[in-house]
């Protein structure tokens, strides 16, 4: 598989005749987003790590409206290496705030396809995630924007941005993946 998106797009363009390449539908993208949510809530991290393109970013920004994430301070700005480290941290038992990892249930709804084509789409939805750990329940609410691309194996994430509605407020320690 090609490392960069352009390569990916070209591959698809070459192997799939344009007449049969279908636009990514809302139903298809929703199903994928729910699948990702389910993997995180049920700690199926290896499978989760495989959902991303090689150059993908997982971003939890702080300042509303920021577009240049790379030059901004975020809560998370993870490439593949950092996502892997995050997963290792959750599984290692070395982190006192992640031993045990908080139990989470996330609910994704209010989906809207912002852009779509045969090869890529941008999906926005609401996410409400409830965590429970050490007798304490907390909720984090936000918008999630997925940039998905069609790969040979199905959809993959090129970018996932979690826009918490209270991102500029003081949060509690979040010892799991939003």
């Amino acid at each position: 598989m090609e490392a960069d998106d352009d390569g990916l797009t070209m591959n698809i363009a070459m192997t799939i005749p344009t007449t049969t390449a279908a636009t990514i539908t809302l139903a298809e993208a929703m199903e994928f987003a729910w699948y990702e949510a389910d993997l995180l809530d049920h700690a199926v991290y290896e499978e989760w790590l495989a959902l991303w393109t090689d150059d993908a970013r997982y971003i939890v920004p702080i300042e509303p409206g920021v577009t240049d994430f790379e030059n901004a301070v975020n809560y998370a700005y993870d490439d593949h290496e950092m996502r892997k480290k995050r997963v290792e941290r959750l599984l290692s038992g070395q982190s006192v705030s992640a031993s045990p990892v908080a139990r989470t249930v996330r609910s994704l709804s209010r989906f809207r396809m912002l852009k779509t084509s045969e090869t890529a789409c941008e999906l926005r939805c609401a996410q409400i995630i409830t965590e429970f750990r050490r007798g304490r329940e907390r909720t984090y609410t936000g918008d999630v924007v997925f940039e998905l691309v069609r790969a040979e194996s199905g959809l993959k994430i090129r970018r996932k941005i979690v826009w918490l509605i209270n991102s500029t407020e003081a949060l509690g320690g979040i010892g799991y993946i939003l």
Partner: protein
Amino acid sequence: MTSLAELTSNPDDLIRKDRVRTPLYTDPAIFDAEMTKIFHNTWVWVAHVSEIPNNGDFKMAQVGLEPVIVVRDRKGQVHVHLNRCRHRGATLCEVRKGKTSSLVCPYHGWGYSLDGKLRGVPYENGYDETTLDRSELSLKSLRVEDYNGLIFATFRDDIEPLADFLGPAKKWIDLFMKQGGGYPVKTLGEHKFRFPGNWKIQLENTTDAYHFPLVHKSFLTAVDKETEQQLDMLNNGGFVEDLGNGHSVMVMIPELIDLDDNLEAPIPEKFAELAKELATEGYSDTEVRRIVRAVGGSGFNVNLFPNLACSMAFFRVLQPVSVNETEIRHIAIGMDGGPAAANRARIRLHEFFQGPMGFGSPDDAEVWDRVQHGAQGGDDMWIMLNRGFPKEESLPDGRHRSDVSAETGMRAAYDQWKRMMTV
């Protein structure tokens, strides 16, 4: 007898040189007294100069629990006003930061210039000179002084100048600011989080090297080998020094005290790519070395009593909320006008450890939370701060110094706490 009464009548029952009793974390009356006896009576950090660079720039802050506005007026002078209209007490500002030409109360429209003077009162004919004397109704302004970019405010006009209050800490602040790498230091953004615990638990932590290898094991596992060795701080010859007035410095990586030194040292592997990028952008070899060394931050924490630490590569700001709730801000800093690639590298390092989703802060928050939880039991028991006490070296001016894992910095902070709380 209540703990608070005990504090004045028999302080040794609550606080000694090497230990403090549990009510210091749990007693709401002690917390209330701290907000006046300490936060209302000393210099409190409110801003870095780069947060309000231009005339009209402002930010919200707090001095203890009291809301203030830090603002640069039309002539460039910095003021710190109580965020409270002189009419009926509403806040004038609920925007974290921004730019403005005046401060107008949303309730009845009283308007103030940025220097705090009352300018506009709508429907003024409802008052006469006996009921509205504008000169008496300026915003309540605090005394403001700054040192090397750090802006402090105090409610007290009669305490020592800031420079005297900081004393020996000034040298360390100057060293810390060298991580501008030849550029002025600038704030880049911040992480804020809360933990359910007393503010002094965090105050102690910035001078606690002892917890690092255990609490931050998952972070140490995630970094490269070279960084891991550098952060093996209990074995690197570091030290803690009492700097007077509750301040202290904890040196964890002695070779990173002065970032202008050792520029000829090999560039760490993790910064090799950055160094190459900077060279390609046309920076000279010396500039590259200075910038790259600065990107990694300083090898020490300067703890300034009561609410700021210049902590390796960021500012740690402590905001008490209640006896068992504290807000922490980790402000990222970088090079004002420096290469974007260097600031990006600093930001990524900041995100790695700090904040609610960092690989370090959540573990800190968890153990602090546990201290507060544990302290709900054993009201008569002591919190021990005696690590390194017997072997402590006394400096000629009465200050103390010990090895890096000693609780010398905490003892320095509690000395000041006791001086201020027992008057």
